[in-house]
């Protein structure tokens, strides 16, 4: 068993950290405060090939392994959790379905622009009454001649106001039971009948805009169908299997940022005539935080390594997301505790880390869904 990163993976970490510390961390507080989508950093990230890392160069990607992609996502999120979710929602949720299930014509049309970061993507699965129970969606796509007509709405769609390409799930057979009858479509932003609603006001990752989408007799060509009719649920679940590892990496970055802040503060803050880092009560908290982060990191990298080696990764990804997201919330909570009253104020970043961490337990499958996936595998 080898726990060493390759030279390239080490360089990805140091290089993306350099970028995140210079370009992302300095604006993370401001974009959170102003609920501002950090549009200006996306061309810079595209210039560094960060918007399509795991896809082959022939499709505009960087051609890295998945572990490298997760390391980069971790470091981006350490600098700015909002930018982390923009990156993973685009790279994994929006681009992967086309890479994995798209026809050659769809790949030729979209992949190069998306993997190179020229056009931003979004993934539209969740509906007002269909969250964890994704198959309960009521959005429909009815075949009409050589097209499909979409009707319905989606909510909580990351990147939506700035995206140009949307992966949209809708029922092509509304009468089908359960997970059957759902299909996936590629919808372009300027399609008549498609509109983006007002962004939600959220607890955290406030720079990531997550509005609803509306489809009113939105007609897309038949070749916008991704994969086969009825394959939508499978496409969504396979995409989320990889996406969950990404949320694990995002959580890891948030947790590491919270620990870094706590360690720096504990060394500086003097009480009883000495830095609080010398107090055992603080040391034990830091020890627990560091240990949890290390365990989460191993789970995230293991799941990513499984992708690189062609091994199954659904259960491993669920474990990585579950543990890393709950670690992030716990570590950020402890970081506030170490900061005392100051940690509850906007003078220090840990309150933002705490708010940013919580979403990682919710989106791309709640912790309860991850436990369901893990239990199903364990009880098989």
């Amino acid at each position, binding site marked *: 068993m080898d726990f060493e990163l390759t*030279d*390239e993976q*080490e*360089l*990805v970490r*140091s*290089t993306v950290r*350099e*970028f995140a510390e*210079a370009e992302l961390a300095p604006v993370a507080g401001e974009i959170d405060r102003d609920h501002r989508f950090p549009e200006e950093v996306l061309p810079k990230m595209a*210039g*560094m*090939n*960060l918007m399509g*890392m795991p896809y082959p*160069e022939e499709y505009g990607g*960087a*051609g*890295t392994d998945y572990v*490298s992609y997760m390391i*980069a996502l971790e470091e981006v999120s350490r600098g700015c959790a909002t930018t982390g979710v923009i990156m993973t929602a685009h790279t994994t949720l929006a681009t992967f379905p086309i890479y994995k299930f798209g026809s050659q014509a769809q790949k030729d049309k979209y992949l190069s622009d998306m993997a190179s970061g020229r056009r931003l993507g979004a993934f539209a699965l969740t509906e007002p009454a269909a969250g964890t129970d994704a198959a309960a969606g009521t959005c429909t796509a009815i075949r009409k001649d050589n097209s499909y007509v979409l009707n319905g709405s989606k909510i909580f769609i990351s990147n939506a106001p700035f995206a140009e390409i949307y992966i949209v799930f809708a029922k092509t057979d509304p009468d089908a039971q359960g997970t059957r009858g759902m299909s996936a479509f590629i919808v372009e932003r300027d399609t008549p009948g498609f509109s983006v609603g007002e962004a939600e006001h959220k607890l955290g990752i406030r720079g990531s805009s997550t509005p609803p989408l509306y489809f009113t007799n939105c007609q897309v060509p038949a070749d916008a169908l991704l994969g086969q009719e009825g394959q939508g649920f499978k496409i969504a679940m396979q995409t989320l299997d990889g996406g969950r590892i990404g949320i694990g990496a995002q959580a890891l970055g948030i947790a590491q940022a919270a620990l870094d802040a706590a360690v720096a503060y504990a060394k500086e803050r003097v009480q009883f005539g000495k830095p609080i880092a010398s107090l055992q009560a603080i040391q034990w908290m830091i020890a627990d935080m560091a240990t949890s982060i290390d365990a989460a990191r191993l789970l995230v990298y293991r799941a990513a390594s499984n992708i690189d080696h062609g091994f199954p990764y659904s259960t491993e990804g669920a474990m990585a997301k579950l543990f890393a997201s709950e670690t992030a919330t716990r570590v950020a909570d402890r970081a506030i505790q170490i900061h005392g009253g100051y940690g509850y104020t906007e003078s220090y970043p840990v309150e933002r880390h705490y708010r940013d961490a919580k979403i990682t337990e919710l989106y791309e499958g709640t912790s309860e869904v991850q436990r369901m996936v893990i239990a199903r595998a364990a009880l098989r």
Partner: protein
Amino acid sequence: MKIVVAYKWTSDPEEATVGADGVVNWSRARPGISTYDPVAIEVARGLAAATSAELIGVTVGAKGVGTPLAAKAALSRGLDRAVIVEDDSLKGAGQAELAAVVAAVVRRIGDVDLVITGDSSVDVAAKMVPTVLAGELGWPAVAEVTDVTGQPGALRVGRAVPGGAQVLEISGPAVLATSADATTPHVPGMKDLLAAGKKPVEHVDLAALDVPASSAVMTITGRARPARKERKHQLLDTSDPAEAAAELVKALREVGAL
């Protein structure tokens, strides 16, 4: 045209600690390319692109400077290839000794038109290597270089001087030390990192180089912290900003600071 960038692989001082005795503990400082050397590579890359020159990285030092990671980190910044001398006898070597080895590598490469270095190394900051290197090669040395344009034999070199800027024309090979802020180096992209591993790296034995014995040996024989000036602990106790400013000016004049 061949352009050499002499870079240093060294430890980051921000990760070093200073003991109560004033001695710097480097054991936990991670190694990396010296802070100002990416500036030199960026300036050199621009000139190499404009002149279709080959850009060759050269580094010399003790064990560690020639690891694949170190080489890839430098190559990912835009070098075409690297020539590395890694020999533990160079541990703790002085600036003159290191410059002599770099000069020997430049001679070995042959037909080099220009050597570009960073402003100074982040760990020692002596600013000696470019000058000594130029002396070893018999070339002119120019410091505080902000930009380089032109062709071999007709280089136009901009440099920062106190109170302004200066433009030089250089008709032959030279050693140029870039200013610390000559440009903002780009952060390598992911493709650059992967491509770095495919670029040629030549490891040269120190013993195989023709390094002339130095006529002078420089050894650090003592270290001390800067003497702390006595503090006056003078407080300007007024709520009127204009009055406070006047008092501050007066106080500064009294001690000769203004």
